[in-house]
């Protein structure tokens, strides 16, 4: 599963949605946060959370959302198949900290950068201790999502709210087409086989 969660504090919902190029789908019923390509909901403390499974890009969209507020903006992105996750924290539109979990980086299962709030160190220490105690379970993967949950109150794998507003992209949403897939394997394989056959022809005694 891939999901992107963006939380912004102290700003109107319409402003955030406009910055991200999103709008509510007219007449669509509310649902849970994975029912639609984009969803949003307000949380206590003046937090607005926007989620997407496929189409939000944390690096660019969180920066856009953070630019709308002079308070905090946090966001995380998770890829549950390779078990990679990361989170960023902004204040006054400026990037303050980053936490990255890369399972292949055994030396630094949770890489941190920037001016870290106390909660980062606390969650990090807790996860690493649990991971050391129980081999074969990736506790560090959840830390970026726990950070978002700590600030916004949205726990992605416990949330049972069904009043998430379904959103859609507007014409103003910047189109970020993914790079065309370079599927080079089949051509390379065919070229290799052709080469081998020709080689055999050439070397027939």
């Amino acid at each position: 599963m891939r999901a992107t969660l963006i939380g912004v504090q102290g700003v109107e919902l319409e402003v955030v949605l406009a910055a991200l190029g999103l709008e509510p789908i007219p007449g669509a019923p509310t649902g849970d946060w994975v029912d639609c390509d984009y969803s949003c909901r307000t949380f206590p403390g003046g937090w607005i959370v926007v989620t997407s499974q496929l189409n939000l890009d944390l690096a660019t969209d969180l920066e856009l959302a953070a630019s709308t507020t002079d308070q905090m903006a946090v966001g995380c992105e998770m890829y549950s198949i390779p078990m990679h996750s990361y989170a960023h924290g902004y204040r006054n539109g400026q990037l303050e900290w980053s936490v990255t979990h890369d399972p292949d980086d055994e030396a630094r299962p949770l890489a941190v950068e920037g001016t870290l709030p106390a909660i980062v160190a606390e969650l990090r220490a807790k996860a690493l201790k649990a991971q050391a105690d129980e081999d074969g379970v990736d506790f560090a993967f959840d830390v970026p999502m726990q950070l978002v949950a700590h600030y916004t109150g949205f726990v992605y794998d416990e949330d049972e709210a069904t009043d998430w507003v379904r959103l859609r992209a507007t014409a103003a949403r910047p189109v970020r087409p993914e790079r065309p897939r370079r599927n080079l394997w089949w051509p390379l394989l065919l070229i290799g086989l052709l080469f081998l056959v020709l080689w055999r022809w050439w070397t027939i005694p």
Partner: protein
Amino acid sequence: MRQFQDALRRGAGDMKSWIAAREVELQRGLQRSEQALDTYRRGVERAAQSAQSALVSKAEQLIETGASRILPRPAARSTAVSKPPSPSTPTRKPASAQPGQAAQGWLQEATAQTAAAARGAQDAFTLGLGDQAYAGLGAVGDVLQGDDFGASYQKRMAQERARDAADAQNFAAARTTGQVLGVGGQVLVTGALLGPWGAALVPAAQGVRIGQTAPLILRETAALAGAGGAAGVIGQAIDDVAHWKVGTPGDYGGAIVGGTLGALAAWRGNVARAGAAAGLTESVAQDTLNGGLNAQSAARARETAAAGATVAGLVGASVAKHMDGLPIKAKGVMGERVSRVRNFVRGHKTGPTKKTAHKLPGGGHTFPDLRTYKNGLPQQLIESKFGRKAHLSPRQIQATIELNNYRVDHSVPRDIGAALGLPISVIFPWDWATTQPQLEPGATAP
């Protein structure tokens, strides 16, 4: 002056006669020594024969009392030996109708065959260096007793070569079988040593599947074996096209055996070992099906195993390294694709890509990557994983405990390396690496 010359001539004649007399005495002494040696040799032979008779008698008792229903009747062995004897090997006498002599012949035959097979295995396993080591050690022993090392080494090497030649002439099947077994052992030992070293050199080729990964079911194993066999057939067909010939059923049968075994071995992990196993079994199976193993079989098996390991290892490691370096999104796509292939092989349909939450009995939600259906009914929730170090999160661990239909698919980069490396190694034309000619169809072992 003349008197002096006469005296000198007489003295020389006396010396000649003295020398002739000593030569006669020496010849007589040598004859007496030879007679004594001959007498001693006969005594030793008589003693050895009596000891052998006693041993055979005991063996006969054992055979007749304990294994008479299993062993063939002595008369049945009368046509077993048909090859001309070699001067350097014990002459194998035709078995007589008497049980004692037949059992004795059977024991000698079995011992000689086993020894020839062991020598063949040793030669193949040590790449022929065993004979040299044996001769060298023996020569060192001779040096301690005052002999010349070089002469002793040459003499012993000549003996080893003569014995190998005699084995090849008189015990061809046993020696070839031993050589093939020796090559197999060599491949296994080399693979055991080089496999971990190769994996250590290429981190992308490492990675252990997580414990909760769903094992292959029978359909998946059969599909894997079928894919390997198909790769073998394609490889043989390419070889046929390249040589403008039509392969024998034995060629195709051997290719299927090699490809199948290689594919099953590849699932275990090390693609280089799988390539070696595929090359070895394909070569041996083809020679066997085409008329029997021959003197070149062991060398050819070794060469094809080495070539298979090289091609599969290089391609597999390169692909694994590429897969390991893929962007995160691409890794996600790859893991999901592997799960879709598994679903297809299992006979399940895969639902839409969009993820939905699944509530867990113990609280919380899990978000499976795929859902499968059969006849329109939901079957399994699939959690895909891709990567050398990917593990389950605590919530996913909870799902494996609480849900019966929760399946974990974990693929690692080396799986993709094996999926490409092994077929290429099976399809790859071996001739560039082999110096031994393939057995002609219909030929028989010498």
